[in-house]
């Protein structure tokens, strides 16, 4: 009842202020009239009665004011009044408002963008049913601490049969393959899954049905997008045939767009529940599982450690020190992106800090301008709260406008981030601004407002009217404390910028060192075609190699192309092989100490096309065929590793790539960096395609061009398709591939550099503001000095010396901070990358008891 009255009366008075005022005025006036009448009735004259009433009850105006001030609506009205006042002030001081808003928009925008990425990748649950119960299985070796995200077939089957904490488990493997459709072929990620896969993810097809064990090698599911791209729509895809690794499979179902596991998969082909590989040492599979809703990861891990121990006693050779462990799927997916993202977050945090300092500083300058106004308010009796309120409101208003502008900035920023993101950044398709981000931004804005208005508001509250009114800044009479405070802020700003700039410099240095590295081959003007010719049998493969040789000849004859060759194991590419090899004269084979090398299978002319120098001997030739003696070309590192200073030509090499025939070394070539510029050049064993046709049907064709490589794309595609329309093709350039191999480093460096740039801009604004203000304040003093004959240069140097001093302090503080932060970042990275950390989370007693 009374609350209702409070509300309605307050609202009524807010809505009709004039009537409320009239009523109060009338009531007060009536009171005084009655009082005067009472005095008159006691015999006073009209004039004396008025005086007596005033004497007794005070002034009519004061009484009206007091009565009017009652009610919550007055606080609200004051608030809105102050807000309007703050708005008007902001409009009046356009330079201040624009600078502060822009500063905050940059700071808040950068934070909103990075938070969007962090929220989508690290915080948001995976878009699958029971996402918190999904796990991948890893194999962990307790003696070495090594962990792999793969499992062997038999181990996984044992876990599937025995673990009661696991509701469903599926084995899968995936690869980037050429898929042949009726009239064309496409390159895409194909995942081979067993019938449990759909159960693990509780999948519902949008058309058709799911896979059963009887479908193995005969049926596949495709993604909605794949169906749309190749068959118009999901319904039309049903019943269509695909060729995957030369097996004809029928599309029996279509999965919704939203399902994207493993990332980028478009085709899920059925494989049997009983894995083909029966070795406990062949880690051919990945495993994904759903835990029972009643269990926890802790319990599942304990159970799996028990099962691993039983397997170890049953198979002491193969399973020694081996544990199969569950890891939350979310954690497995985000993997080592967490430190990168947190690192970026810290960097944008610094930017926001700089922005806050800037705005604080701008506010301080404003409040110094207003000091006299505030002093007069205080002198007229405003409480310190009443003086602080407009200052804080102004700050809040600026922050909210800045925050709104920041969100607007964040939209394009997020799009750029996603574009720039390295391909292996998980869940990029899920990144978008949402309510959480908006909430975060709002909270950030309010926090910023508070942070940047604390100092000015406190100063406003502390204004001593008597002192302030005596001071006159335009005459150069100011207190010392004010300058100290502003100088401190400049130092803080320079320090934060320095930390950012140093971080950016370090990352850029790494980046530049990586991009400038000699890869061992020429990356410019090199078109690369990912080519996958269907081949099922050895005869198919041999035919494919023959056909490729014909294609190389055709392509080489095209204008603008200098050299053409084929290669399995192109540097920085996804395919490739490596393993142990033996050489003649090296004594008995010791499995544990065999030399190791990358294996590549190349066509004649590969070294010439790539610009890899032939140091000794010869290249492969058309005379090296399946019937002629087997030959090999080795890299310099391999020669040094296995033959030392002896002449490697004519020596015999054997490796387990596909045949155990001995190969004669016919040439030595320069080393290349195989994986990325970050890697050291290492030993490589090259073998001719004609002698290893099994590795010759899925290759990269490299074309050394005289023109921009990609301009030849259509012509090359037509030529190859004319020779064999079933060859799946994908085009890129060597430069692009090398670039991609350092995408993560570049992503980090580019972001931090742009943050440092923004930071620098803000710090410059801040320093400029302080200096301009100081100089303006000292105009009088400077004028006096000059009147007494001070040199222009001397005055300039005082101002500059002051700025330089602040910058030096800032750099010193920044240096110390950088050192501290560097240790923090290093330890954070180390913690994130340490492999067996999960093992330390197991309670040994629980693990033992369950065994």
């Amino acid at each position: 009842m009374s609350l209702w009255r409070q509300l309605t009366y307050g609202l009524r008075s807010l809505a009709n202020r004039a009537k409320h005022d009239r009523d109060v005025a009338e009531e007060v006036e009536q009171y005084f009239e009655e009082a005067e009448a009472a005095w008159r009735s006691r015999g006073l004259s009209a004039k004396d009665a008025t005086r007596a009433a005033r004497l007794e009850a005070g002034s009519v105006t004061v009484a009206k004011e007091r009565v009017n001030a009652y009610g919550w609506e007055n606080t609200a009205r004051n608030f809105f009044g102050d807000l309007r006042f703050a708005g008007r002030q902001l409009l009046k001081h356009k330079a201040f408002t624009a600078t502060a808003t822009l500063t905050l928009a940059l700071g808040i925008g950068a934070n909103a963008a990075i938070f969007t990425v962090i929220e989508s990748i690290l915080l948001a649950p995976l878009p699958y049913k029971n996402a918190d119960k999904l796990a991948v299985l890893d194999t962990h070796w307790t003696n070495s601490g090594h962990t792999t995200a793969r499992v062997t077939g038999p181990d996984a089957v044992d876990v599937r049969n025995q673990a009661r904490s696991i509701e469903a488990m599926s084995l899968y493997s995936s690869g980037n393959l050429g898929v042949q459709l009726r009239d064309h072929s496409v390159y895409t990620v194909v995942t081979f899954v067993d019938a449990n896969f759909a159960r693990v993810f509780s999948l519902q097809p949008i058309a058709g049905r799911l896979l059963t064990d009887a479908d193995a090698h005969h049926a596949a599911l495709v993604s909605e997008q794949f169906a749309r791209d190749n068959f118009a729509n999901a319904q039309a895809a049903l019943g269509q045939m695909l060729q995957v690794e030369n097996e004809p499979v029928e599309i029996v179902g279509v999965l919704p767009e939203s399902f994207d596991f493993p990332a980028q998969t478009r085709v899920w082909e059925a494989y049997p529940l009983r894995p083909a590989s029966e070795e406990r040492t062949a880690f051919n599979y990945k495993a994904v599982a759903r835990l029972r809703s009643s269990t926890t990861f802790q319990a599942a891990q304990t159970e799996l450690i028990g099962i691993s121990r039983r397997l170890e006693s049953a198979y002491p050779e193969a399973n020694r020190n081996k544990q199969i462990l569950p890891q939350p799927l979310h954690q497995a997916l985000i993997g080592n992106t967490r430190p990168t993202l947190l690192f970026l977050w810290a960097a944008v945090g610094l930017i926001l800090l700089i922005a806050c300092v800037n705005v604080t500083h701008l506010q301080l300058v404003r409040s110094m301008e207003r000091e006299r106004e505030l002093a007069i308010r205080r002198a007229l009796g405003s409480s310190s709260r009443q003086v602080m309120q407009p200052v804080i409101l102004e700050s809040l208003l600026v922050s909210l406008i800045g925050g709104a502008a920041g969100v607007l900035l964040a939209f394009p920023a997020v799009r750029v981030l996603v574009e720039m993101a390295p391909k292996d950044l998980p869940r990029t398709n899920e990144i978008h601004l949402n309510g959480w981000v908006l909430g975060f931004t709002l909270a950030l804005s309010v926090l910023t407002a508070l942070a940047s208005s604390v100092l000015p508001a406190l100063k406003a509250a502390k204004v001593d009217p008597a002192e302030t009114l005596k001071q006159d800044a335009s005459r150069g009479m100011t207190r010392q404390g004010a300058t100290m405070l502003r100088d401190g802020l400049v130092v803080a700003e320079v320090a934060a910028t320095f930390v950012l700039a140093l971080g950016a410099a370090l990352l850029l240095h790494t980046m530049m060192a990586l991009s400038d590295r000699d890869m061992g081959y020429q990356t410019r003007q090199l078109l690369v075609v990912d080519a996958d010719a269907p081949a099922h049998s050895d005869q198919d493969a041999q035919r494919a190699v023959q056909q490729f040789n014909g294609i190389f000849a055709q392509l080489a004859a095209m204008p603008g192309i200098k050299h053409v060759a084929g290669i399995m194991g192109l540097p920085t590419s996804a395919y490739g092989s490596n393993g142990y090899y033996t050489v003649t004269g090296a004594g008995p084979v010791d499995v544990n100490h065999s030399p190791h090398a990358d294996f590549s299978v190349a066509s004649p002319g590969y070294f010439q096309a790539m610009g890899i120098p032939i140091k000794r001997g010869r290249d492969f030739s058309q005379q090296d065929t399946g019937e002629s003696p087997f030959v090999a070309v080795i890299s310099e590192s391999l020669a040094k590793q296995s033959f030392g200073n002896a002449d490697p030509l004519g020596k015999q090499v054997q490796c387990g790539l596909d045949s155990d025939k001995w190969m004669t070394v016919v040439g030595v070539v320069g080393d290349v960096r195989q994986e990325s510029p970050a890697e050291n050049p290492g030993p490589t064993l090259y073998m001719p395609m004609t002698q290893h046709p099994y590795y010759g049907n899925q290759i990269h064709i490299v074309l050394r061009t005289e023109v921009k490589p990609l301009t030849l794309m259509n012509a090359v595609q037509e030529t190859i398709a004319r020779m064999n329309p079933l060859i799946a093709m994908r085009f890129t350039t060597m430069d692009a591939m090398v670039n991609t191999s350092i995408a993560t480093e570049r992503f980090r460096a580019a972001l931090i550099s742009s943050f440092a740039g923004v930071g620098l801009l803000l710090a410059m604004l801040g320093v400029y503001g302080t200096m301009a203000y100081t100089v303006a304040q000292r105009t009088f003093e400077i004028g006096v000095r000059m009147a007494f004959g001070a040199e222009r240069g001397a005055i300039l140097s005082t101002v500059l010396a002051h700025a330089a001093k602040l910058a030096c302090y800032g750099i010193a503080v920044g240096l110390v901070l950088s050192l501290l932060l560097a240790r923090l970042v290093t330890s954070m990275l180390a913690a994130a990358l340490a492999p067996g950390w999960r093992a330390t989370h197991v309670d040994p007693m629980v693990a033992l008891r369950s065994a």
Partner: protein
Amino acid sequence: MTDANTDVIQGTLDMLILKTLSLEPMHGFGIARRVEQVSRGVFKVNPGSLLTALQRLERAGWLDAEWRQTENSRRAKFYTLTRAGRKQLEEETADWTRRASAIARLLKAEG
């Protein structure tokens, strides 16, 4: 020589208003004059405080207000005690009596 203290004891103004209005509806000055007369001049009420208190009590639901003509045909705001106000008055009176007698006992014991 200082003037005798005529301020209303902190927190008792509401009770005095409610008590005064329990007899009949009155306007602001009427309440002030009555408090002064009944207390024989011990309490003098300031119009600023009184009218603010009336607003507060009205919003609390203890008083209703209405514009009416006074005996000399002047428009004035008359306050009436509501049922809730009467209950409040009883509570405050009981509370006050309890406290006052406690203070009286204490003062007596001191003397």
